[in-house]
């Protein structure tokens, strides 16, 4: 455990080296939030609520989603593929550590950095300008944190599996583009699923993507009852089991078939 915390800390510190890129990220997050606030305010002009969602709900959604998206971003699929392609994966395999936990720790360090130095400042700024509501009920807040934690595990598992595919293809694939697109479309990261047409909304119910981002925020905003929130968390756990089985299966195949090209 301590080893992996150290990896987490290292990847967190590594981000500190690139000071200018941090300011630029900050600026671009500000712009994104600012544009979305303008767009939704204009959409709501003269309308009280649409599908039971008020403008205030929507502004809360934008602010909280800055933090959630910082926590749920992943590049691990691309990183694993790059390591497979250039052969450095062999070095990782020689280390006396669990590769998966190493990859997770590395990503989490990066994400925590993004939250602290990027999302949180923007959120505080936006909350001061546009207003922001915390969940009144501490129960809902704790359910949100649990749901968000499992959401992070789900996207990490999916992206890890996507990275493992490169052991077969031996190439950097645009798979992360597909993944990002799937999360945008079925996860409600750009337009919340509240506003989806019925067919699209029903499709999202059969996929794990809405559990990463949309459902935690839904709980945060108190748009579900505590018992509904509990069942969402159960569904998350079920998905995690499925993803874990897939990943174990792939991993067992990889250990017997790994070939390193050059390096």
């Amino acid at each position: 455990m301590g080893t992996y915390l150290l990896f987490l800390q290292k990847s967190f510190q590594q981000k500190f080296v690139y000071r200018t890129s941090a300011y630029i990220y900050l600026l671009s997050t500000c712009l994104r939030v600012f544009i979305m606030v303008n767009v939704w305010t204009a959409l709501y002009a003269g309308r009280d609520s649409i599908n039971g969602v008020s403008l205030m709900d929507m502004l809360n959604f934008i602010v909280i989603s800055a933090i959630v998206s910082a926590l749920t971003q992943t590049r691990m699929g691309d990183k694993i593929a790059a390591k497979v392609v250039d052969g450095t994966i062999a070095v990782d395999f020689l280390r006396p550590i669990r590769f998966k936990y190493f990859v997770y720790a590395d990503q989490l360090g990066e994400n925590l950095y993004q939250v602290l130095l990027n999302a949180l400042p923007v959120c505080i700024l936006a909350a001061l300008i546009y207003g922001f509501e915390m969940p009144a009920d501490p129960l809902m807040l704790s359910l949100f944190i649990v749901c968000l934690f499992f959401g992070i595990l789900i996207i990490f598992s999916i992206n890890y599996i996507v990275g493992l595919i490169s052991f077969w293809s031996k190439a950097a694939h645009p798979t992360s583009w597909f993944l990002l697109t799937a999360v945008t479309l079925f996860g409600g990261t750009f337009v919340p699923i509240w506003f989806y047409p019925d067919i699209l909304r029903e499709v999202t119910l059969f996929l794990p993507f809405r559990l990463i981002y949309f459902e935690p925020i839904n709980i945060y905003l108190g748009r579900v009852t505590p018992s509904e929130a509990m069942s969402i968390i159960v569904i998350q756990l079920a998905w995690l089991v499925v993803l874990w089985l897939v990943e174990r299966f792939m991993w067992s195949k990889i250990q017997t078939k790994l070939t390193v090209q050059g390096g």
Partner: protein
Amino acid sequence: MHTFKLYLEFIKIRIVSHIEYRKMFLFWFFAQWIAYGVQLLLIWVMVHRFQDIQGWKPFEVVLLYALSLNSYALAGFFFYNPCTQLSHLVRTGEFDEILTRPLNPFLYLVSREFNFGYITHVVLAVPVTVVSFVMLDIPFTFTNILMLLLILIGGALIQGAVFLFTSVPAFWIVDSNGMQNVLFQFRDFANYPLSIYHKSIQILLTFVIPFAFINFYPAQFFLGKQDFSVFHPAFQFMTPLVGLVMFALALWFWHFGINRYKSTGS
């Protein structure tokens, strides 16, 4: 004329090398096409649910997006690679090699670094433009098609000028890629009608970074809209002019930069 053929030859080589790995090319093509397609779909879904945004109907907003994407792709073909790689070329000293060629360094760079990948954007944005025209009952008259072409060229010149403006600081060993990213995030403003923003943003996107001329003003020509707020309705015709002026200024800035360029010596 002879050298012009040479530049075309450079572009041809780039395209051939790009599609050499056919499977990989198609895979990337498809991935990007779907990604932009989904974004367009969701913008439509969003505006459709609310019926309109500041009086702009779903397909009118889709048209704005398509115009912006089209002109961005036209500019991206030529300027994306040279402009994002300029600071790298300067740092490694590769740019010196370019200066020693008996060719115009600008045209040489633009044709040598041609990015065929932007074909994806075109293959999405052109059909979406046509569909929006049909859905919005805009007739395909000679005037409209001519206007559309002029708008796309003018828009591409504006986008190209922004690429150039943000890359020139690389001559002074300033890493400008970050600034470039922020400026290109400003393009996101143009995915929605300009009139939803505060006046100061409208002025910024009209006179300083004139992205509003890429789609917002000229689209109103087709749509017969009068959503100009404090600006003059004549702005709908000014895209080609703004494009030419911006691009001329950007070229001047490029030459200004290249004249003051001192090699890194590496």
